[in-house]
């Protein structure tokens, strides 16, 4: 395809996309107003009905819990796909133990970085667990908390070494966390079935508003998603790091 034909295809695409985009923008409600009727209803009934003060989490894990189950498995499949693609090929071998990248070309890590890493590893783990377990009360939840908690292990690498990171987060444990989390969500859905209701219906007692144990099945799903997401992100990081530090072309 020559340059002129390319430009023509681009112009056509840009014109179509731009037109549709402008048409869509003109239909938007003004800034800060015009939430849908569905949103209005949920805002009114959510706290009374489910004793959940973060309506976003209530929509994700309760009112639309089944959709989110699908989304969770999208992430699960994506991580599995990356791990499968990065498996060791026939032309790849184990790198020598003292790889130049492992020892960062012999340079020592500064004490300031090591200290900050140790402190923030603890802070991130704690904050991640907080966000996971308070999903029904404040903004956040399993996904957000899981991602935040997974960054703690990356700090272990920055402040310690690759070896320490592998010791703190052994692959079998990480894989088990991801699998348990993914399965846990589906298993929580069965609670509703056993109580004679629909799959993923929130049939557990809602608890008192504002308590960490309120919201029925929602905190359980938060924990399951937290495990799945933190496990998935850490597994992705471990796989990428392995590819760089341990596997070399033959």
């Amino acid at each position: 395809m020559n340059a002129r034909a390319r430009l023509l295809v681009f112009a056509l695409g840009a014109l179509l996309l731009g037109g549709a985009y402008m048409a869509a923008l003109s239909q938007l409600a003004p800034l800060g107003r015009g939430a849908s009727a569905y949103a209005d209803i949920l805002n009114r009934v959510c706290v009374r009905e489910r004793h959940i003060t973060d309506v976003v989490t209530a929509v994700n894990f309760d009112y639309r819990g089944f959709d989110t189950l699908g989304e969770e498995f999208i992430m699960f499949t994506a991580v599995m796909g990356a791990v499968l693609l990065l498996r060791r090929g026939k032309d790849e071998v184990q790198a020598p133990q003292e790889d130049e990248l492992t020892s960062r070309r012999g340079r020592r890590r500064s004490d300031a970085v090591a200290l900050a890493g140790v402190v923030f590893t603890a802070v991130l783990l704690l904050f991640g667990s907080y966000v996971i377990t308070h999903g029904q009360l404040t903004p956040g939840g399993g996904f957000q908390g899981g991602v935040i908690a997974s960054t703690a292990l990356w700090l272990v690498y920055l402040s310690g070494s690759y070896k320490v990171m592998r010791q703190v987060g052994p692959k079998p444990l990480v894989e088990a966390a991801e699998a348990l989390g993914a399965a846990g969500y589906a298993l929580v859905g069965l609670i509703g079935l056993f109580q004679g209701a629909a799959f993923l219906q929130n049939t557990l007692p809602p608890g008192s508003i504002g308590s960490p144990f309120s919201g029925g099945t929602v905190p359980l799903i938060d924990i399951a998603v937290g495990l799945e997401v933190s496990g998935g992100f850490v597994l992705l990081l471990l796989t990428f790091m392995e590819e760089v530090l341990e596997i070399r072309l033959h």
Partner: protein
Amino acid sequence: MLVLQVASLVLVAMGATAVILTRNPLRQSLSMSLYGLLLTLMFFLFQAPDVALAQIAVGAVALPLMILLALSKVKQNERDAAYARQRDEKASQGERRDKPSSRKGQE
């Protein structure tokens, strides 16, 4: 509030342009990390703290880190391939010195 919201939108538009204009992939991973922070700020100012919490970890840390690791692997493969080429060349030169007669015979 509206002023801050407009300012964050302008910053996001400028940040996205900056990421596109950064042509070096290594630098692009850093500019994208900053862009992730700007997006986080925008989500927060538009009262979507749930999204902001996810964005700050994924957009500002995880994605740039994945790109850095991928770039590192690409460089490593290039180095290894160059090294293997050199080794093969040396080996074939040594062969030529060892058996000049047999090479002549082939020619």
